């Protein structure tokens, strides 16, 4: 791969933005938040984040924003991922590896059904405040 310059990156972004604007019929944004605390990192949260980047590209999901945060609190169930979207409750999924990431995309985001086996709800309020 040739080294990309920052200008190349700008061009790529503009191309992708144009594609997005053409398709943007409804402005409903989905948020995927990956927990990146010590235990999340140890459990492979970087790989989970990267898997989501891949699947968002593969499925051409341009209305999904992907971000990372510190620990969400469910350390026994790392990597932990929260999904927020209209029409669905905010859900915290646990033990999200590459395969589960794919299920979240296919079943939760596209199919609007929960990936039951991985729902871990919310952490206890004394662990995370103000979430």
């Amino acid at each position, binding site marked *: 791969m040739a080294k990309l310059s920052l200008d190349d990156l700008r061009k790529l972004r503009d191309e992708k933005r144009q594609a997005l604007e053409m398709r943007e019929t409804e402005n409903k944004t989905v948020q995927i938040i990956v927990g990146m605390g010590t235990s999340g990192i140890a459990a492979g949260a970087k790989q989970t984040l990267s898997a989501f*980047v891949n699947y968002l590209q593969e499925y051409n999901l341009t209305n*999904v924003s992907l971000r990372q945060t510190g620990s969400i609190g469910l350390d026994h169930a790392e990597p932990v991922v929260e999904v927020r979207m209209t029409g669905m409750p905010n859900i915290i999924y646990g033990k999200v590896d590459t395969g589960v990431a794919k299920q979240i995309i296919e079943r939760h985001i596209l199919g609007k059904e929960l990936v039951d086996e991985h729902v871990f709800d919310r952490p206890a309020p004394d662990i995370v405040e103000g979430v």
Partner: protein
Amino acid sequence: MHAEIGDFIVEILQNAVESGGRHIRLDIFQTPDSFEFQIQDNGKGMSQSIQDRALDPFYSDGFKHPGRRVGLGLPFLKQALEAIGGEFTLESTEGMGTQVRAKFPLNHVDTPPVGSLSLTLLTCIAFPGEHELIITRTCSDPAIEYRILRSEILDAAGPLEEPGTLGLIREYVESQEDEHG
């Protein structure tokens, strides 16, 4: 314990972001025999007594991290390096900032693999916040050298919350690393 050296980098970098530092530097030097990283921030820093306790895995002040109460980053790193004859230094001045340096010998049987550096750097860049992060990466064999400014790459690739930004950043870093070359 962390599986890759990259995990330690992400962890210590997160500390720097959470320290309130506006300027963070991540320098990575690699030779065939060693992998060294240094993370420097101008955040709140730690007094000597807090530094001592920060290396104790059972210590937390209960509020050092927003949103969580414990932290194992520094103790894990120190322990991992002691086990393989690496080097670890922690320098911090209250109100001035903190600097962590870690050098992993790559020829020790228990040294964790470096892992995908582009994924590590993507994660480092993607921590939310308004801080500047300057990454320099030098590797002697194969010869790799580049520098990334977080503000510049976000300006080019788009804000973090914009769909697709993380994919673009990963592509950019991969091309600097030439990981698929």
